């Protein structure tokens, strides 16, 4: 029953995203993500060129100079362009000095606080407003170093894609020193249930139109509580029940805004656009410029058998766009409706759309993905509308208002088209006030004569599916077979085989015997930057017309993974699994289909069922890390003065440092200048001085879950890790005059 059962604790607030943006430029191929390298092919064509010989002095100054787009050329209205020309952007984008941190913020000066706001002990049993767990701050917390807490981290598996975000964190906490509930989380969170366009104000830029869901869990044994909150006590008791596994945390992030220094933080440098940001950077100012999202969420029970990171229940996908039946007179939005997103960049619109035109007549928009549970005991259907209702922004302070689809019916649609009504709810249960107060959840009581048994019959023997109806139209429709996984993000090294486990459900129950699933491998499109869609291998993606060179329309030479070419049998418990083996560096998307005919291309935006969008697909994203065994051999030769290094100094500190820097550390030194504050990666003396810390922070153990892993972006191949570990041992041992034996990258 997940967070849709009771008790629940609701929260709302704001999430800060302090990502470093120079590894995900959507217009210029600055970073060769697949190979974790600077894109020398592109940088070498600049005038003057940036080369392996001069980058230490030339790259960072260039990264803060506005530059014309390479591909795609931005024409998508207001963006964070650096001048009136929308096709001019900073190579380092909007937050060069970001550290990948993310956190719920407490900034009372602008009423931007993140707190618990309410709760329910049961249906129609709201928690007392004076319950001490309410009104408490919420936190996502990273790991500690030397006793100091680091932030949680936002890490995209593919830095050029917005559909594979992950939040690494150590723990969650709601409360203070007197009253609290929290604990260590079971695993990192993944962005789920993408919804574009969720917000349509014309002032929103970059990812401002996207909404997403994040979820993780705290196992019962890891729960930590303090104080005497009846609501928290009830939730902990429910989490300790025989069929429970712990506490589940789920929240939506949406309405993301940029250039907010001084509003959501106290940073004195307050650029409001790219031009001002550029001016400050060129003055030598070093500061962060985070983005901020609204957050609405809920804490509830995590039951045994439920995935930790994927929302479960009946999954309803958008069936059609609808215009609101009413809207605020203040509504003013762009007349053109976004159809998708390019990478982390501007919204996509229909070709020829007038992007300057505005209207107060809101366009028809489809909702986002909805998860639902039928609660027989309470006689209700509980709906998760956290990321489901479109919004139009009224003000820059994120106080958005929501689409009024009118009264929404919950029911079961039968194969013949009949709609058996279960219950209904009005706008007052999903408007802004209710949404913020109830964690985005809506409980709909069974109507007269409706029983859980009857609903079971409609869904079972009568072969119906859950549906939402508004304005006489089917707004959302259940997709009966769901294929979800906690292996949403996978890092796989050279020569490595990994297993991905799937959980298959049919109408929120075990699937029928004989159920099968097929795995299809896609590549991100565009391949090199700004990936906002998927393209099936062996199919031709839509060409990008503006390509001035070999940037936009590059195709992968071969699939990145070996995956099964057969139907996966689902066992009686709804489980399936398969092995993947790395073949070539890249970012494959593995989509799970219940039928053998996949879509050739999958994009953001509304897709009429049975077509799927990225938001309604079931998938994993893998990062096949670079194959660096040859580099390992070269490293050994460099130290031993062998092979191509014959005649060079043997066992030489400077020579081996230059090898390590120019093949590994240089990328992070250039792309993540925030490291200058902790461990300047381009300075041998400083790196040697921090070698103890470096050696423990690059280990595979840390990679799995720690917010302190280096590199935090997790693009260090097994080969490069082996080189760093070996070099670190040489440093610790003060460069012993002895040869290195051959090294083998373990697969």
């Amino acid at each position, binding site marked *: 029953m997940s967070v849709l059962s009771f008790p629940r604790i609701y929260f709302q607030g704001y999430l800060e995203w302090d990502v470093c943006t120079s590894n995900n430029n959507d217009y210029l191929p600055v970073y060769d993500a697949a190979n974790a390298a600077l894109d020398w092919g592109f940088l070498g064509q600049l005038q003057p060129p940036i080369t392996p010989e001069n980058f230490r002095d030339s790259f960072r100054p260039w990264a803060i100079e506005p530059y014309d787009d390479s591909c795609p050329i931005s024409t998508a209205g207001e963006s964070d362009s650096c001048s009136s020309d929308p096709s001019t952007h900073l190579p380092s984008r909007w937050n060069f000095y970001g550290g990948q941190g993310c956190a719920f913020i407490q900034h009372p000066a602008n009423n931007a606080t993140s707190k618990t706001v309410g709760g329910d002990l049961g249906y129609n049993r709201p928690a007392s407003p004076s319950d001490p767990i309410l009104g408490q701050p919420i936190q996502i917390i990273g790991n500690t170093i030397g006793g100091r807490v680091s932030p949680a981290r936002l890490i995209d598996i593919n830095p050029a894609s917005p559909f594979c975000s992950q939040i690494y964190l150590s723990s969650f906490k709601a409360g203070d020193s007197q009253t609290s509930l929290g604990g260590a989380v079971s695993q990192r969170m993944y962005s789920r249930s993408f919804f574009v366009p969720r917000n349509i104000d014309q002032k929103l830029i970059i990812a401002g139109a996207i909404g997403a869901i994040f979820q993780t869990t705290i196992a019962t044994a890891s729960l930590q509580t303090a104080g005497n909150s009846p609501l928290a006590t009830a939730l902990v008791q429910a989490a300790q029940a025989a069929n429970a596994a712990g506490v589940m945390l789920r929240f939506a992030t949406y309405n993301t805004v940029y250039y907010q220094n001084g509003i959501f933080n106290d940073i004195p440098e307050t650029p409001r656009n790219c031009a001002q940001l550029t001016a400050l950077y060129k003055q030598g100012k070093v500061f962060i410029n985070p983005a901020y999202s609204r957050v609405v969420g809920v804490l509830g029970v995590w039951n045994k058998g439920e995935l930790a990171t994927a929302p479960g229940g009946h999954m309803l996908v958008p069936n059609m766009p609808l215009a609101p039946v009413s809207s605020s007179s203040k509504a003013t939005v762009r007349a053109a409706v976004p159809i998708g997103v390019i990478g982390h960049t501007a919204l996509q619109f229909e070709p020829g759309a007038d992007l300057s035109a505005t209207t107060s007549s809101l366009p028809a928009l489809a909702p986002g993905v909805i998860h639902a549970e039928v609660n027989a005991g309470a006689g209700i259907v509980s709906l998760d509308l956290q990321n489901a209702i479109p919004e139009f922004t009224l003000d820059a302070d994120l106080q958005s208002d929501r689409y009024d689809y009118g009264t929404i019916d919950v029911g079961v649609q039968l194969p013949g088209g009949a709609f058996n009504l279960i219950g209904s709810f009005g706008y007052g249960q999903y408007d802004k006030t209710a949404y913020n107060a109830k964690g985005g959840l809506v409980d709909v009581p069974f109507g007269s004569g409706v029983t859980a048994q009857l609903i079971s019959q409609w869904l079972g023997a009568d072969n119906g599916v859950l549906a939402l109806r508004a304005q006489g139209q089917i707004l959302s429709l259940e997709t009966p077979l769901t294929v979800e996984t906690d292996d949403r993000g996978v890092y796989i090294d050279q020569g490595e085989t990994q297993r991905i486990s799937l959980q298959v459900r049919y109408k929120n129950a075990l699937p029928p015997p004989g159920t099968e699933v097929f795995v299809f491998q896609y590549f991100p499109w565009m391949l090199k930057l700004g990936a906002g869609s998927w393209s099936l291998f062996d199919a031709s993606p839509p060409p990008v017309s503006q390509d001035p060179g070999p940037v936009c329309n590059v195709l992968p030479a071969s699939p990145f993974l070996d995956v099964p070419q057969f139907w996966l049998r689902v066992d009686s418990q709804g489980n399936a699994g398969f092995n993947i083996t790395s073949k070539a560096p890249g970012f494959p998307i593995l989509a799970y289909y219940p039928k053998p005919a996949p879509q050739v291309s999958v994009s953001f935006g509304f897709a009429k069922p049975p077509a799927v969008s990225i938001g309604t697909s079931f998938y994993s994203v893998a990062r096949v890390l670079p194959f660096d065994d040859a580099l390992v051999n070269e490293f050994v030769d460099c130290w031993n003065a062998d092979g191509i290094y014959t005649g060079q100094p043997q066992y030489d500190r400077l020579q081996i440092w230059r090898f390590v820097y120019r093949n590994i550390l240089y990328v992070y030194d250039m792309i993540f200048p925030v490291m200058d504050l902790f461990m300047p990666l381009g300075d041998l003396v400083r790196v040697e*001085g921090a070698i103890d810390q470096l050696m423990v*922070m690059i280990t595979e153990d840390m990679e799995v879950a720690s917010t302190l892993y280096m590199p935090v972006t997790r693009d260090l191949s097994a080969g490069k890790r082996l080189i760093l570990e070996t070099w670190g041992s040489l440093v610790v041992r003060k460069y012993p005059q002895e040869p290195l034996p051959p090294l083998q990258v373990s697969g």
Partner: protein
Amino acid sequence: MRRAMSILLLAALSVSCSSHGPKPVARAEPPSPKAPKAVHATYLRTNPAAIRECLAGEPWAECAWRLFIELNEPVTGTGTKVWETEFRQTSTVYLADGAAPPPWGQAGEPPDLPPIPPNGCVPPGVRHNLDTTIQVDGRDLLDKWRQPVRYQLLMNEPVFNYIVARQFYNVNGQELAAQKGQPADFPATSYELKTSWLWLGTDAAKCAEVTGKYYVVNAYYQKFDRDGQPAGWDVGYAALAGMHVINKSLPNWVWITFENVFDSQFTAAHLELPIAPEVQAENQSNQSNLQSQGSVFANYQLDGVQTTFTVGKSLNPTLLANSTIESAFQTQSSCITCHHLASIKPNGEYFNLAYTQGGNVHYYVGNPPDQTGYNFLDYVWSMKRAHRQRTTATHPDLIKREETSR
């Protein structure tokens, strides 16, 4: 003459206390300002028995202050302080080529060191090589002028003599000791200092800002380029921000740290561990006395004294940190535990100060971890600053090893 001055000065400053206890954190009785002043006829810094006697018979904080004042005599004026001449900088012991250091008293300065342009800050005096900016956790600490705080390690003659005798001045010698299973065992008269500094350069305005607040010296450091190659010298003035004082009067050494009370105004760090009430009382008393003499050392405070791994018989770790030296890991800073880890494997690998657990990076506190396979270096982490001697070996054991490896 200095000794006579010292005795008189200490007689004027000292206070007696009738209450003694083994745990500094448990001490709560402040010294009475009306108590008769004792005369300390013995220098602590040269007499381990005197320190032991002091620690056993007086508040630990008072012993620490006595040491600090002894080391900083004369406490008034800009004259060279005791520690500046009685201690030798590690940069002259652990030479870059791993060679044997010049004998005691013959260290000298780098031949190409330029003179310090006078700017009225302080008169010419001993020039200190503030040769690193890197703290134990690999990070640096910036001051209000965005310059890194600099550090200097020093040792007294008994430590130097022991290092030379054991050929611990290079990694090769330390490795050999590890291969033979011969741990270090420094004499009880051993002392080391670690000092932290605000770099003023030759900026007269900076000097003016710290004058009266900090003890200022002549200083320099060698610059290195990004590839670690020497890139000339920087010379100027520096203000004493903190001072670790450690000595081996007890088997696990005695760990003392002082810092300037203005540090939080001049650096990005502040002291995170509380100063025990009895230490605060001792600070107040000594600062008051020093202030009455017009001594700049009235602006320094004792942060604490550490002699045990844990508090009493409990497993609760004792902690001690200086905000300018252990800035970013103060709550996991235990000098005694960290230095117990000073050890090396036969292959030259030093014990790693950091470890991970549950995705967190920790520094050891409390009782030390297992160090099997490592040769004990008797708490002297400064030996990690030694370089490898890369020229043809002259030591018979090294020659033998080279021949074997061939």
